[in-house]
């Protein structure tokens, strides 16, 4: 069924978008990743303008991070105080991100920048995941989710001012550190339409030294706000949030995630992680081919803003 998107001003096939977001939802249900980093490139592949893909994807992430963090909240796996400090940084970051986005648009480089950043990002994560998961196939199983984090926090970070107590995480640390981590997440949300979990989560574990049990829930909690703020700003400054597209994406990802969670027992974690790494690398390769292969036409025309 063809449906006309009122903001993108083009007709798309509902089934294609639905299946696509269901597949991403399934992947995220299986692996517990956000999936924003897959949906945006997929939307670009099927011809949605990159700017609309980013703006709309941000609103889809509001839904998925909301669903995820509610689950963690119920199990009391969210450090709300930490989440709020990260949120302040995240909101500032999403402001900066939107101006970077506007500036790149003005230069005519936004499509290139989105592709290039995705290539770097997916290439980096994909290869790390691949190496790690292949290595883990040969390692003995160990408990990944330890109750305590034994990471030694670097003395530089401990010396930063404006220290704050985070009772839930049992940390006494400068508010700037979680704020800065949130800030980077906010920039990524505005520029790329992703939650940035792949960057925030390791940072929270290795830089902040948070207990791993609290990391996912706290990260998701602050992603609601960064992607929410990115959505509003894309809507106000760019008019690139397509609610019709967003609703199809949300429905697809909800259905996909349900299937993913219910069939996850079918898969053994380690082999499946190799598979996810290969998906990520394949998307990266496709983006690279598009960017490095000679285009059909080196000229392109857009309606002036």
């Amino acid at each position, binding site marked *: 069924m063809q449906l*006309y998107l009122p903001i993108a001003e083009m007709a798309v096939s509902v089934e294609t978008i639905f299946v696509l977001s269901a597949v991403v939802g399934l992947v995220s249900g299986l692996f517990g990743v956000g999936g924003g980093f897959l949906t945006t490139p997929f939307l670009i592949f099927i011809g949605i303008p990159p700017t609309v893909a980013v703006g709309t994807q941000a609103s889809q992430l509001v839904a998925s991070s909301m669903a995820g963090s509610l689950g963690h909240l119920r199990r009391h796996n969210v450090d709300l105080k930490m989440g709020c400090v990260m949120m302040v940084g995240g909101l500032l970051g999403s402001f900066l991100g939107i101006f970077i986005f506007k500036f790149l648009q003005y230069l005519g480089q936004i499509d*290139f920048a989105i592709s290039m950043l995705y290539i770097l990002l997916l290439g980096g994560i994909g290869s790390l995941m691949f190496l790690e998961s292949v290595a883990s196939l040969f390692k003995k199983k160990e408990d990944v989710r330890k109750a305590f984090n034994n990471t030694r926090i670097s003395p530089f970070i401990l010396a930063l001012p404006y220290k704050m107590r985070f009772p839930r995480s049992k940390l006494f640390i400068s508010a700037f550190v979680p704020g800065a981590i949130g800030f980077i997440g906010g920039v990524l949300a505005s520029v790329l339409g992703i939650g940035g979990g792949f960057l925030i989560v390791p940072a929270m574990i290795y830089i902040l030294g948070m207990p791993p049990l609290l990391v996912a829930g706290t990260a998701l909690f602050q992603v609601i706000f960064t992607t929410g703020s990115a959505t509003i700003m894309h809507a106000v400054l760019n*008019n690139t949030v397509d*609610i019709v597209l*967003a609703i199809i994406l949300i429905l697809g990802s*909800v259905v996909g995630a349900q299937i993913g969670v219910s069939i996850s027992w079918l898969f053994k974690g380690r082999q499946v992680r190799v598979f996810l790494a290969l998906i990520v690398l394949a998307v990266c390769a496709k983006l690279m081919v598009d960017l490095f292969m000679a285009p059909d036409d080196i*000229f392109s025309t857009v309606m002036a803003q």
Partner: protein
Amino acid sequence: MIRLFQKRKFLVFSSFILLVVFVMPGKAFPEPLNFSLADDYVEITGGFTGSDLVVFGDREGDGEVVVVIEGPAHDSVVRRKERTFGAWVNRSSLRFKGTASYYDYALSVDSESEILSLDLQKERRLGLLALKFAPHKDRYDEEVTVLFQDALLRNQQQNNLYPIKPQKVLFLGEHLFRADFHLPSNVPSGEYKVRALLVNDGQIVYEQTKELQVGLTGFSSNVHKFSINHSFLYGFLCVLIACFAGWLSNFLVQRN
């Protein structure tokens, strides 16, 4: 689907009848050329995948017929990619003033060059050669500017916004003619001008212009207008809807 088809047929048929009833009796003081549109409003609704546009007309004078559809003018930016460290990156651009957002035309002959001089084509914006794209600033020399102008035409043709070759004006008898156009799904909305011209002996002897509205209607239109006029509220509502959807999906997971 069948009903829609019948509705369209009915419209085409009724406009044909109207033409016969109201235009024909005017023979006492005939206009050399007269035309009407089967629809003077093209609605872009949720299911819009493009639309056919039929122009009916009556030619009383002598000469060949040209029908032109032109969308609202806007500025266009043409960008050129160059290989930079292996990747293809936009490196130079040129902005053009007042380019037609949509252009299509139909002729009763094979090519406009058969009946009109190039000067006259340009003067009256008839045919692809007449679509002169004036650069905003004289940024490049003429040779490079021409490359950009050609690219603009080519890109718009690829987007189905400009034709590759003219459509045909078909005569249904000695006087009555029709021209069939197809507006693609990415057609820009706005106020269109449809012109029909009678060309005789290299001169334009008569011209008639009608307006055609192409616009979003219904849900699409409301969403589009709301997103522009109340963009903050629109963004905020998008976030609220997403939050609700997230809560709902979590609620459903919990119940299972």
